[in-house]
């Protein structure tokens, strides 16, 4: 009895400590409880939760679809199935695990499947769908609206998973399609205007892999060969009719005809070789991974309209190829001189070389006006060496320290030539090379103050002598601390994180300060009551030197500082009450509020969920969730505020 009570309490803690999910499927429910039914030599556990979801949206529905996207209709909200052989000697399989979510019509759907027979094979499948909608108002005044679906799948088969020689084969696919808007700058790259385009997104990625592992002399050698193929065949068109200039009311430009085809087809062959061992006094592992990359492309763009200088009739043809070679080697060596001390050294060398040719031909009003061959090369060589030591001083106290050195070289060539006869120019291959070095050190400790109370503190400080961009880490430090209390029915933690970076040069200065505070508390007070509370405050302030041109009638150079200050307060509350065995009630409330002052907004999502058992195998569920999004300062041309009432009702069959 005591054991049952204890298990129930542990389960309750687990349920109450869940993050606030979306309102459905029914969370906190032990989907596929341990009952199960025996069928021959197998045990079967399954649950199915069909239901109906609804939503009622007020305000900016586009923003709602971008953030939340739940709609109306019937779905299989969740399902779960396990079949296990009871003696580990099934005929065709020993285990099947299948779980699904949102199948039918949800914007986020997924399914995973594992089938395995002990010692013979293991097969894993993953399938996911994400319906993506973004009105693009905040980033492009709506010119880059997207309404696409992306589907992923992956299949992985391992033969003889428990033997000393294993074989792997796999296949992955990632496909994205759907309508979208795009835009194009035409007729003058500096002063030309922006026109909206219709595009039909068509992207597809396929990968194949085969490999093998061998355990020999205490080492494991793994070799994997993979082939990846990518293609994008997204066409762009005007969509019909004459289009006036974009967000510039006084510009007389028009676009009367436009068409662009820009297929890209590429492949990425790759290798992975690893060698590992883990002994009593040391562990060694090495990895070599290589990816090639080759994209072939053609672009054909025809545009007719009126530009700043009159009638425009332009044809652009571009073709060429881009190549990348990325090779990486790693070596890890860990030694354990005593049981209390671990010292690990890691050396990594990465070399990436990207280059390609792009032939550009521009014909204006049937006259060849530009004939350019572009060549670009980008090379990144990165050498990293880290040494970490961890010493366990006592059973209650241990500390660690580490040092990292990085040497990076970035080389680039950007070159342009006119290949047209009779005066063909040659490339001016000016190589730009620069290096930077990073020295970073870290130190930390873990202290078990009293049995349930644990403190973790770590800090890092780093210096980069030549960062690549003005916002990169140059002179930085980070602190991360956490105090955690964990008992059978109570868990609580509080912490503080800080990250300061100062990257300054003579003309401008960039600094960033982030300070995060958090605390959470979970308490399974009774078998029928549990509560979960959390609060985080995320502060970020940055100041970056900027230069830009502005003014009327003539733009002049301005210098200034871009200041961004964000103070985000995020709180969550969840409480679960079980009314004997007659009902299970959950309420939750999430609020995320940025008090700015740069861009204040408020996002709140309260929810409630009720489960009523009808029979031991059947439960009725209902839930409601409200989403309220409120901007106080508009980034888009309009405030994108919305509120949405969403909910669901479902039946959960468990066998």
């Amino acid at each position: 009895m005591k054991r049952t009570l204890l298990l129930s309490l542990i389960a309750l803690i687990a349920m109450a400590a869940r993050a606030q999910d979306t309102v459905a499927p029914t969370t906190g429910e032990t989907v596929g409880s341990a009952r199960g039914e025996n069928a021959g030599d197998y045990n079967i556990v399954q649950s199915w939760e069909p239901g109906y979801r609804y939503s009622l949206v007020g305000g900016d529905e586009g923003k709602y679809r971008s953030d939340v996207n739940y709609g109306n209709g019937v779905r299989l909200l969740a399902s779960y199935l396990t079949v296990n052989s009871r003696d580990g000697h099934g005929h065709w399989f020993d285990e099947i695990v299948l779980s699904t979510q949102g199948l039918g019509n949800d914007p986020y759907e997924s399914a995973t499947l594992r089938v395995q027979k002990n010692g013979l094979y293991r097969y894993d499948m993953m399938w996911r769908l994400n319906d993506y909608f973004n009105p693009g108002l905040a980033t492009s005044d709506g010119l880059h609206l997207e309404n696409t679906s992306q589907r992923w799948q992956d299949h992985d088969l391992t033969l003889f998973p428990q033997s000393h020689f294993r074989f792997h084969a796999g296949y992955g696919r990632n496909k994205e399609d759907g309508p979208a808007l795009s835009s194009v700058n035409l007729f003058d790259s500096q002063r030309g205007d922006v026109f909206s385009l219709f595009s039909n997104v068509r992207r597809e990625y396929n990968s194949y892999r085969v490999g093998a592992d061998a355990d020999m002399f205490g080492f494991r050698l793994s070799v994997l060969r993979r082939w990846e193929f990518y293609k994008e065949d997204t066409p762009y068109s005007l969509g019909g009719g004459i289009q006036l200039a974009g967000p510039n009311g006084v510009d007389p430009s028009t676009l009367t005809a436009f068409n662009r085809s820009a297929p890209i087809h590429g492949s990425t062959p790759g290798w992975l070789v690893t060698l590992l061992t883990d002994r009593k006094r040391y562990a060694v592992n090495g990895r070599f991974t290589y990816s090639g990359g080759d994209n072939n492309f053609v672009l054909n763009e025809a545009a007719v309209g009126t530009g700043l200088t009159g009638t425009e009739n332009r044809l652009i043809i571009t073709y060429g190829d881009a190549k990348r070679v990325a090779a990486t080697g790693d070596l890890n060596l860990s030694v354990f001189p005593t049981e209390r001390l671990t010292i690990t050294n890691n050396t990594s060398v990465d070399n990436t070389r990207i280059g390609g040719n792009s032939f550009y031909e521009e014909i204006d009003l049937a006259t060849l006006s530009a004939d350019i061959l572009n060549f670009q090369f980008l090379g990144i060589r990165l050498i990293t060496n880290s040494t970490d030591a961890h010493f366990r001083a006592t059973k209650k106290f241990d500390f660690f320290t580490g040092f990292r050195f990085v040497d990076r070289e970035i080389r680039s060539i950007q070159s342009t030539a006119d290949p047209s006869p009779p005066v063909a120019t040659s490339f001016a291959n000016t190589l730009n090379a620069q290096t930077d070095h990073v020295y970073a050190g870290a130190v930390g400790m873990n202290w078990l103050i009293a049995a349930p109370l644990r403190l973790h503190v770590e800090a890092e400080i780093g210096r980069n002598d030549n960062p690549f961009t003005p916002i990169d880490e140059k002179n930085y430090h980070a602190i991360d601390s956490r105090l955690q209390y964990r008992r059978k029915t109570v868990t609580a933690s509080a912490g503080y994180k800080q990250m300061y970076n100062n990257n300054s040069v003579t003309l401008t200065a960039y600094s960033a300060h982030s300070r995060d505070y958090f605390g959470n508390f979970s308490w399974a007070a009774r078998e029928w009551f549990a509560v979960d509370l959390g609060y985080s405050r995320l502060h970020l302030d940055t100041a970056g030197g900027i230069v830009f041109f502005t003014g009327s009638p003539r733009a002049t150079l301005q210098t200034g500082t871009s200041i961004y200050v964000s103070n985000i307060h995020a709180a969550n509350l969840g409480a679960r009450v079980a009314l004997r065995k007659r009902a299970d009630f959950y309420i939750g409330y999430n609020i995320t509020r940025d008090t700015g002052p740069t861009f204040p907004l408020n996002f709140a999502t309260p929810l409630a969920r009720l489960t009523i058992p009808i029979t031991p195998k059947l439960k009725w569920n209902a839930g409601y969730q409200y989403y309220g999004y409120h901007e106080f300062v508009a980034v888009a041309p309009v405030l994108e505020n919305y509120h949405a009432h969403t909910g669901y009702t479902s039946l959960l069959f468990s066998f």
Partner: protein
Amino acid sequence: MGFPALAADGVSVGGYVGSAVCQTCHPDVTLNFYKNPHYKSVASGKETAERTGCEGCHGPAAAHVAARGGKTTIPHAFSLMKPAEVLDDCLTCHAKDVSRANIRRSVHTDADVVCSTCHSIHKPQTPKYLLAKVQKDLCYECHQTVRAQFEMPVKHRVNEGVIECSDCHNPHGTFAATWSTGIRPRMVDEASGPGAGQNLGNEETCIKCHQDKRGPFVFEHAPVRVDGCESCHFPHGSMNSKLLRRPVVYTVCLECHNGAGTFGITGSGVIATSSAHNLLDPRFRNCTNCHVRIHGSNADPNFLR
């Protein structure tokens, strides 16, 4: 179903008694153990006593049986063991996997977050990987600020269940990032294709799903390759559209494109905007309206098409 007796006399060399003996007092643990992945070692019948069944993890039980129970008589009682001991025990069998190649130097190991902190062998909530809780809840237990980020209006769909933390992170530690120089980013996986496992490739994990940003491109936007996607985006969640680091697009761009210092691909400052880009004109405020191929282009050095 159940466990075979180890030997006719019930006691073997080294104090191993066999799991069938354990079953006598611990039926709650052994009843459903055939569903546990660790049951494979029992079912095979080929493993030696110290590598199978209850004693494979908990050590020889003769003393525990003789004492008629008690946690302190179990050689390897995980709730009483130090974190490092837990790690060593599990790695006895689980070390030789490339996804765990960096576990000895991982941030989790440094913080005394070891196998039993996240995995529950006897009471898992997920049959795959035997996690003590659903993955995101497990991670949120310590990473409360990350939880706050995933509850922002613009975020990757972790709470909605379509992706998981381990799609981008390897909680067992990773090799040094090839797109960054600092000790951070931490435990961000290195990807090749979607779902292709962990540590298989040498590119930033984002390209697992965002394949169109992978290239190669003739004209690379160099920071994407040199410093990674986080140069412009918050990866977990953001209050800003497209997970951008700033709500207004041109401020994202201008903080780098100021022509100052020795930054950028030529080492002489990241090129500033043209004098023709008068910011009073709204068309120049959303830079990506013209520079549509900002992640990289094959046709235009200025990413216009």
